[in-house]
């Protein structure tokens, strides 16, 4: 079945600027697999080294966050809308580490 995948602006650099794609898949996993197969450079931002969906990537199937329903195996209906939604987070945290940022502007 064919679903609409809505891509956030952060990942549109991998889709030639397209905000919406039409992909085949019976589950969210199949649709995301189709997405990263077609746009392999996006994979590192979607999935971690173990192949799990990154914690800060949420996927909605219709109105449902898939983490609240069937996860990546959430079944999809023909014509359904799947949306990738970043879960933005961060902060100064413990204040001890600065990462590898190279300086200030």
């Amino acid at each position, binding site marked *: 079945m064919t679903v609409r995948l809505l891509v956030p602006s952060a990942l549109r650099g991998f889709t030639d600027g397209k905000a919406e794609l039409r992909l085949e898949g019976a589950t969210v996993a199949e649709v995301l697999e189709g997405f990263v197969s077609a746009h392999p450079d996006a994979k590192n931002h979607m999935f971690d080294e173990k192949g799990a969906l990154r914690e800060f990537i949420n996927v909605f199937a219709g109105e449902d*966050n898939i983490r609240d329903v069937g996860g990546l195996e959430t079944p999809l209906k023909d014509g359904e809308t799947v*949306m990738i939604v970043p879960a*933005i987070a*961060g902060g*100064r945290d413990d204040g001890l580490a600065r*990462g590898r*940022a*190279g300086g200030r502007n």
Partner: protein
Amino acid sequence: MLALSPVLRDFIRSEAEKDYPGECCGLILGTVSTTPEKGNPLRFAKTGLRIAPVRNARVGEDKRRRFSIEPRDFMRAEKEGAALGLEVVGIYHSHPDHPAIPSPRDLERALPFYSYAIVSVAGKKAAEFTNWILMDDRSAFEPEPLEFKEP
């Protein structure tokens, strides 16, 4: 590159002061150049035209050193921007009593393309305002040029 008007810069600074000693956060909505910068499809000239403050979903003491934006809040702001022909071009947050430098936690959860603006707040007063972008290999942030100018 991110361009922000002085008015929007000052609004973000005031949000950072208002939420002190907690971290403030929000989205920068704006427009994007039609062609990438330096041929890199993840780098564009972005102009912030609207600020969408978002509730920091962290609670209590945790709010002093972390922020998070609920996906539904993100979706709401994104939808509001889209209705105006704008897209999410960046994220801002504050670092109370801490330099405006991305933390490892900022890095872990960062996405490409977005500008990450950070305001340090020292003793209730907004101080340094910096701007960063994720390197393509996710290994680090690097400074992204920031201009305060009228659109």
